[in-house]
């Protein structure tokens, strides 16, 4: 007598509902491979970033520096490409340098947070301003464009009808899912997020696990910055502005708890795709951008409330089951 587990399927169901509604309202514009490819392309940067940031969420931390680290790494890749003569090799060096900068930024976050026991939001709030400053200094606060074919290909090249960033997102999702679901490190991440003291007593190197999470977050933020710069063929201190909110929102819509210990990669990717569909739908329905923010906010609240309701329902059921077995004290 197994009840249908709504909460387990609520996310795919919301997606399907969205797709059905949009298909009925705008069948021609919405239901094309080209449009799907567009939606995925537009969410790919957020998707890539959330694959790393989810680690930070899972240990109960947060990263407020996503947007400006994205700008800083975008500037790094573009500036280095120019500096080394706009060759394909220069692009490669730039990409590696940007990724290194991202990883280093994450390591610094992790070290400061775990060594001095400062809340993550304070540390990343401060570094956000530092990264913005660095991006401004490197560009003299101007927009630097970059149309080197080897660079623009990162964001625009298509394979089987889908642009490269979509594949990046998928690969990152698979890697991130694998680490969290299959490796010992992943198990430790959930344990540290669930109870760091018990984890330490169980022999887990809590500090190391935590720093690793921030490094992964920095890496994916840098990859997102590279892809975004390539897509827009330019970099400036405002590259990726607003992405901190978008990445956190994608995680939250996807059921990742900001208190730590709970959340999955498929959930987070769902959150990103749902946000993309929403933007796309508003676009196709010709909702003026002045109203789009309003609608987006409402839909986010509905989605999160829905998830919270499912959670409440689940925990009630749990409580009931415990009572039924007579195991309450």
């Amino acid at each position, binding site marked *: 007598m197994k009840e249908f587990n709504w909460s387990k399927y609520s996310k795919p169901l919301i997606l399907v509902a969205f797709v059905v509604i949009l298909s009925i309202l705008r069948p021609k514009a919405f239901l094309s491979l080209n449009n799907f490819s567009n939606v995925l392309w537009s969410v790919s940067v957020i998707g890539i970033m959330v694959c790393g940031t989810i680690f930070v969420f899972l240990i109960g931390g947060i990263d407020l520096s996503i947007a400006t680290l994205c700008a800083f790494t975008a500037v790094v890749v573009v500036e280095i490409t120019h500096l080394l003569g706009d060759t394909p090799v220069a692009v490669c060096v730039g990409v590696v340098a940007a990724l290194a900068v991202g990883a280093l930024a994450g390591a610094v976050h992790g070290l400061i947070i775990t060594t001095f026991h400062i809340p993550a939001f304070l540390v990343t709030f401060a570094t956000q301003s530092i990264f913005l400053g660095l991006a401004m200094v490197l560009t003299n606060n101007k927009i630097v464009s970059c149309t080197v074919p080897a660079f623009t290909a990162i964001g625009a090249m298509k394979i089987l009808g889908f642009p490269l960033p979509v594949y990046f997102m998928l690969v990152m999702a698979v890697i991130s899912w694998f680490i969290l679901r299959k490796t010992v490190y992943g198990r430790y991440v959930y344990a540290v997020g669930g109870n760091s003291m018990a984890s330490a007593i*169980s022999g887990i190197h809590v500090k190391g696990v935590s720093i690793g999470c921030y490094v992964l977050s920095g890496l994916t933020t840098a990859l997102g910055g590279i892809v975004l710069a390539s897509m827009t063929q330019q970099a400036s201190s405002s590259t990726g502005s607003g992405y901190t909110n978008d990445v956190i929102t994608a995680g939250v819509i996807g059921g990742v708890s900001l208190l730590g210990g709970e959340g999955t990669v498929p959930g987070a990717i769902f959150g990103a795709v749902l946000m993309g569909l929403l933007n796309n739908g508003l676009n196709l329905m010709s909702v003026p951008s002045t109203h789009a923010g309003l609608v987006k906010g409402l839909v986010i609240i509905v989605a999160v409330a829905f998830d919270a309701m499912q959670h409440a329902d689940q925990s009630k059921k749990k409580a009931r089951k415990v009572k039924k077995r007579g*195991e309450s004290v």
Partner: protein
Amino acid sequence: MAGSTILEARNIYKSFSGVPVLQDVHFEVKAGEVHALMGENGAGKSTLIKIVTGVYSKDEGQIYWEGKPVEINNYQDCQKLGVACIYQELSVIPPLTVAQNVFLGREPRNGPFIDYGKMNRMTQELIDRYQFPLKPTTVVDNLGIGQRQLIEILKGLSQNSKLLIMDEPTASLSGREAEMLFRIIEQLRSQGVSIIYISHRLEEVYKLSDRLTILRDGKNAAVLEKEEIIPAKVIETMIGKVVDESAGSKKMLHSDDSAEVRLDVKGLTDATDRFRNISFQVHIGEILGLGGLIGAGRTEVVRAIYGIDKAASGEVTLDGKKLNPSPRASILEGIGFVPEDRRNQGFIPLLSTTRNVALTNYDIIKKNGAAISDADELDMSRRAIKAIDIRPSDPDKQVGVMSGGNQQKVVLGKWLMRDLKLLIVDEPTAGIDVGAKDEIYSILEELAQNGVAVIVVTSDLQELLRVSHRILVMRKGDIVKEFKNVEVTQAMVLAAGQGVEQEAEK
């Protein structure tokens, strides 16, 4: 002592999803009595209390307050009648003062402003009346758990409560704090306040209660008057089988010195002077009990041995090999550790039994490349569940929603999946029901028979005598007494822990 009936619950029935939890239960509390409510986990104590306080609705039956039928649909209803519940999880707010906590949300006003003078005076009056060791202006942050609990009680009294419900009030208190609470309870009783006292600790119930209602399997098993409350009888009624209670008060200790030394601690000294120059040995197959009062430094010593905290000086060797002070290194050498604070240090509440049991054991769980073998992980969890009867037996069950006894089994279970040389357990049965306690004792005994050295830190004297082969007693950071191959009584251990000379208790 006992006056008129203040609260009565008659013919209470309650079932969850068709499973009866309470069947035809009667419960009666008189004015000015301490009425204990006992029963094993799952006997229905908690459900009954939740019905009385309006958390659950009842299926059938009637509740009477001072003889009149009443409907209690929520906690506000029961507060209005004059019932206050002191929960295990305290709800005091640390940065506020005692008075601010007591009158939270009901502050006396002077125009738009809070009249702090009046509030402090009102609090002082309450404190004087019931002789609580508190001051209205102390900030709660500086107070211990015991005093915080008193604030909760004071809060209830400030609303003119006639009935206080205390659910496991001593679960997180030290011996001294518990003594203070008992004194307060006596005081309240003499002022005519009724108390429903729920506890697993039998000796508290014998000491305090005027009457005792025992529930078993959701039915009334017995209501005992004070003179009828005899330990063996209570336990027998509660669990439906005979337990030799008198065996708990004294014991002939036997230890085998010929067994090889497993753990050798030499001159272990704490950096902040919580313990100093601690030296002792544990032999293969020996259960060493560490007794003493709370705060004697026992927990700090075992934490240093296991490597959670680093000692300032001293040496620890296991099987002749010097230990590196870190939990990871200790685990790899074959040491297991069950911490005293189960909820905060023992397990990961959001994670399943499987993930909790596997947490320390990924070095021995099979892997395919970097990927953990889910099958092997699950297999380990199933073995643990079977070996020590963890319930529910669903390996995917979140540990956070299980009962205390089963949570402790999960914490213990992960160590049983390894080749252990030494197991350290700190207050292994705090807040656990009698049945699960017995199971945990047999696990420890079985480990010892298989050659594992075991250190048990416990403040429960009966438990200390029951499981130990040899007993060390600590006091204020020193080992003050060893009991070895002698007959020892609870009183002797207690006297040593309190620094009282032996002849004093004779």
